């Protein structure tokens, strides 16, 4: 069903009922109501969804600011027992901060917390939430890569761990049983760095579930899905439903509105640290949610102009081979976006790293604008010289140095160009870049880590796109990015294409491919299974191709 295209000043969006109404308060009646109205700039009243006598989790008036940044303002949130509650909001709207307050990482400035009707005094000590039945999967999972699975499982655990002795054999047995119960095939003794992203996400979720009390509790998942391909998301949802069925309450953060629609009963939207609405998910139209998140309409549909079949071939990959890839060849035309996708382990996500020299290939040639090189001999430095840039998926580790300034991060790829550096010129250039790519920040000299995830990603794109590359390699370019920012990133990619750059984008998000890709290669076990073109580049078709029986064919 489609909602009416109401402007945001016109009244409540269908299905989003406002909390203030539900409490019988009128706007302006109380200081809190007034503040809430000012803060969101939201003209619509808000109504409570499910009114419950004793909610599992009740947060009220939660406020937290860091210096001048108001990360949370007077936030109220209730979660019923057995409820799956969505938490939405643009990048930097304060979702993680809310969760970190619950986890005892941050001390709030004000606010009350009740669990099962019992008052819990804030701030919580780290790990104390566990005693009240709270368990967390944090954004970026919070796993220590060089430690083993079992060590990660028990670190900080108080439920299963005595203070004076760890019986490793018993813990390992317990871990095996736990993994079996949740259908995970993991050896507890492998280092986490040897796990795939998906395995890491699943493990983090199981770890959190393991911390929950046997009866109920609250599981808080902060964006666990961006790493996961579709069927793993399904699997995760299965797990969540099972847990909810056992009475566990779940708070689920995601930027994917379809996921929210599918799994949650109610959801809360944050904007600039304020709750703008809490609503019952069922029957709430997508657009209304998007509008409430972003505060304005967001266009949908394809971003990229139609492909030009006559454009010259700009990039040619021949016989690319690696440990997981059997020799594969493909080409990309100037101004074309080539999507790579597939199921977990199909190897599509390795291609960008191999071509950029970030991981070493076993064999193959790469031709860009007629210049041919052996892929095995490519290094990141050489790739950059040749106009090939890589936007890695792991922003924190591979994208930005978080304690260094925006400007320095932004200008890092330009370093080879001149030997000396002029900080003023650098700041000026960075400001231009920030404007062009819509990076919201106070000052170029600010540390990159102070930006929200979306702004960090825009900065990463900007820093590479400014080189005027010939070939751009993207790995999950909008992972953890809100709908508004996502759109902006697509537009940047479109601009780049318009200038004739060839783009290869590896992603597991099919609607992203639908929005930007001219052509999609679907991978299976290290080979190209299917090529999709034209109208076939659609979510539906891509999904079908991925899940299709092992049959290589070419859709036109």
């Amino acid at each position, binding site marked *: 069903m489609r909602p009416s295209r109401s402007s945001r000043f016109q009244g409540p969006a269908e299905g989003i009922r406002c909390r203030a109404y539900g409490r019988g308060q009128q706007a302006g009646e109380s200081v809190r109501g007034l503040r809430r109205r000012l803060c969101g700039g939201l003209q619509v009243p808000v109504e409570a969804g499910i009114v419950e006598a004793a909610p599992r989790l009740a947060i009220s008036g939660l406020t937290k600011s860091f210096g001048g940044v108001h990360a949370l303002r007077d936030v109220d949130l209730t979660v019923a027992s057995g409820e799956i509650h969505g938490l939405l909001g643009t990048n930097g709207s304060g979702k993680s901060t809310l969760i970190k307050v619950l986890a005892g*990482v941050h001390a709030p400035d004000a606010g009350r917390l009740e669990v099962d009707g019992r008052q819990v005094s804030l701030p919580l000590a*780290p790990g104390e939430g566990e005693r009240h039945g709270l368990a967390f999967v944090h954004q970026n999972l919070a796993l220590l890569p060089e430690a083993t699975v079992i*060590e990660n499982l*028990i*670190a900080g655990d108080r439920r299963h761990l005595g203070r004076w002795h760890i019986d490793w054999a018993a813990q390992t047995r317990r871990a095996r049983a736990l993994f079996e119960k949740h259908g995970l095939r993991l050896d507890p003794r492998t280092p986490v760095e040897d796990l795939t992203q998906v395995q890491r996400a699943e493990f983090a979720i199981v770890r959190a579930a393991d911390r929950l009390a046997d009866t109920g509790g609250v599981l808080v998942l902060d964006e666990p899905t961006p790493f996961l391909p579709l069927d793993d998301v399904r699997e995760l949802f299965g797990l969540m439903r099972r847990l909810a069925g056992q009475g566990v309450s779940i708070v689920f953060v995601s930027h994917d509105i379809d996921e929210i629609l599918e799994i949650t009963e109610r959801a809360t939207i944050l904007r600039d640290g304020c709750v703008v609405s809490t609503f019952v998910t069922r029957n709430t139209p997508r657009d209304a949610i998007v509008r409430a998140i972003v505060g304005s309409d967001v266009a949908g549909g394809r971003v990229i102009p139609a492909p030009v079949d006559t454009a010259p071939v700009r990039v040619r990959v021949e016989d690319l081979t690696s440990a997981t890839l059997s020799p594969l060849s493909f080409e990309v035309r100037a101004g074309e976006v080539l999507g790579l996708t597939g199921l977990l382990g199909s190897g599509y996500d390795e291609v960008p790293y191999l071509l950029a020299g970030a991981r070493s290939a076993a064999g193959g040639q790469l031709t860009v604008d007629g210049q041919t090189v052996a892929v095995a001999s490519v290094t990141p430095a050489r790739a950059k010289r040749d106009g090939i840039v890589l936007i890695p998926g792991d922003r924190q580790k591979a994208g930005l140095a978080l304690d260094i300034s925006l400007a320095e991060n932004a200008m890092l790829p330009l370093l080879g160009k001149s030997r000396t550096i002029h900080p003023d010129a650098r700041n000026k250039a960075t400001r231009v870049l920030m404007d062009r790519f819509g990076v919201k920040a106070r000052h170029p000299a600010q540390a990159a880590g102070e930006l929200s995830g979306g702004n960090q990603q825009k900065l990463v794109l900007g820093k590479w796109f400014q080189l005027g590359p010939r070939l751009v390699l993207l790995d999950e370019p909008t992972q953890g990015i809100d709908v508004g920012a996502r759109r902006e990133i697509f537009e940047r990619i479109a601009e780049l294409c318009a200038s004739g750059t060839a783009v290869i984008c590896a992603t597991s998000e099919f609607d992203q491919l639908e929005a930007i890709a001219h052509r999609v290669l679907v991978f299976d076990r290290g080979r190209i299974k299917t090529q999709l073109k034209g109208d076939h580049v659609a979510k539906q078709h891509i999904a079908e191709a991925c899940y299709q029986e092992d049959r290589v064919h070419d859709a036109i």
Partner: protein
Amino acid sequence: MTRSDWAEQAERFGLIFVWIVVILLFGALRPDSFLTWSNFSTILGSEAVLVIVTLGLIVPLTAGDFDLSIAQNLTLVSMLTAILNARMGLPIGEVIPLMLLVGAAIGAINAAIILYFRVHSLIVTLGMGTFLHGVTLWVSDSQTIGGLSPALLKYVIINRLFGIPFSFYYALLLALGVWYMLGYTALGQQLLFTGRGREIARLSGVPVGRVRLMALVISGVLGAIAGILYAGTTGSANPSSGTALLLPAFAAAFLGATCIKPGRFNALGSVVAVYFLVTGINGLSVVGFQTFVQDLFYGGALILAVIISQLVSGRKERAL
């Protein structure tokens, strides 16, 4: 065993193997005097203090903090032990608990400054070390103070088990304790996570601040124990005793992280590292080389040993 299992075992015990080679080498040169029980008991008994200082370093190192003040903590404690016991006549049984308190207090003050003001541990403990050195010079009036109670000497250096002075067994017990703590207790896991990923630790519910405090207090107490044993070994305290131990202890801590549990600071590895280096030094002086050769050996052996362990592991990239 598969190839990689072999490599792994070779890596774990590589340093011990090199150690044995060194022993055999010196043994071949001077079988009569090097390969004797009395020589080995001498080696084992004399470096107990260094073992304990190294243990004191690896605990905060595991949690990601340097404790450069441990050497001066040792010096101050040995000096206070001498003053209280030899000069002021306080019985040694009362001095020891007092000294452990002093060590714990030094660790706690380090931690308080590091944690509350969020300063790098290196600079705080460097400053604290210099400060403590000043205090030592002050209380001792820069004098070496001897005349410690024979009871202390007896239980440290004179009494023996299997011909080895007691001090060795104290060091061994402490090493086992630290090994157990790092490997088999919740605190050990918390230390590891705190050191390798502070933010991750925090998010996993580890009380990072308390863990770092604990590590520094443990280090302080180990420093104090080393100080008491130092006084018991030399029968005296001098105002510069500990200074020379700091760098060798760091060397042993990092060398120890290449064996037994490669890639992690570990207590047994540290013990092996200390005695490996000391055996070499002893061997050189038994064979009769000039003292500068000791430095050549020490530096060379340190580098060679880590190179060998890296070659065995296939030059693996490590955090340490």
